[in-house]
């Protein structure tokens, strides 16, 4: 697990974002055990305090849960898991819309290009297999 951090967003926020992406991709399964705070700090090369902060926040958001002295686990709550995926998609779309807006192109033209590009890329991925 390696993450490239930017310098302007809080590191703990970027760690949470990373977890959300892994959850949405299915890399983390519901109920799966996650690294301890110390292991996470070591893997991501971050300060243990930052790892602690990220886990605390994720606990409050219901993304992870801890029972007693057991290691923390990814939530099994279907509603939360679904909303993580939706949230990431909407975030990406918003970002895309933001940058396309400044170029001022009609939506239909944009969508066509998006589709073409997407097909070409997944075709490439197929071809390389």
């Amino acid at each position, binding site marked *: 697990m390696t993450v490239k951090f930017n310098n*302007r967003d809080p590191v703990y926020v970027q760690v949470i974002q990373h977890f959300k992406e892994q959850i949405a991709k299915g890399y983390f399964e519901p109920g799966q055990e996650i690294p301890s705070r110390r292991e996470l700090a070591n893997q991501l090369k971050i*300060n*243990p305090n930052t790892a602690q902060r990220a886990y605390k926040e994720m606990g409050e958001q219901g993304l992870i849960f801890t029972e007693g002295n057991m290691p923390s686990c990814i939530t099994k709550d279907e509603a939360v898991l679904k909303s993580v995926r939706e949230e990431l998609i909407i975030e990406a779309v918003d970002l895309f819309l933001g940058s396309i807006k400044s170029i001022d192109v009609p939506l239909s033209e944009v969508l066509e290009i998006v589709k073409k590009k997407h097909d070409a890329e997944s075709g490439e991925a197929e071809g390389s297999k």
Partner: protein
Amino acid sequence: MIEVKNVEKKYGKKRVLKGLSFTAEKGEITCLIGINGVGKTTIMKAIMALTPINSGEILIDGEKIRKESFEKITFIPDTITMLPQMKICEAFAFMADFYKNWDSKRADELLQFFKLDSTERIANLSKGNMAKVNMILGLALNVDYLLMDEPFSGIDIFSREQIAEVFTSHLIEDRGVIITTHEISDIEHLIDRAVLIDNGEVLKEFSVEEVREKEGKSVVDVMREVYRG
């Protein structure tokens, strides 16, 4: 907590520290940032009572430094202070003789982590490896506070990465660390607090995550504002 309060230090007529104050908490990494010659090393020497101060006060957990404090706080200077003809294992034995808190198990762990051979003579080590041995001499002491002077300066990128990795591990956890640097980029993600110093004064002291969160600024952004704005 280490409290530096209104410290003044003169070398001859030159005022090196001009009423400088800041605090460093246990369990946090505090980074003193400033270009060469602003007084960073002098502050560390003052905290360790290696150089007398002209006025002001320095407290460690509310107490002035005394003989017993050196089992609680240690200083890793920017060059190794062991005799060059010593082997690494002899330097370790030297530390064990002088400090009750020397943890030889941890020293061996660190040797392995840095892939060093304890029978090597210090004089024969590369600059990077010498810096690593120097780090071990401080890290293997079970102290609450660690002061490190420019641990990254003048060594290769892989050694820097290895040393930075120490900061993410249990070796540092729960201790209070003060580190000086003029090259922040290696450790921007690792520190808790930054203290910007210029000309013997603190220009700004802040929590790096808080500044990212509230202002969307990196440490370098803040430095640019403070030093050039």
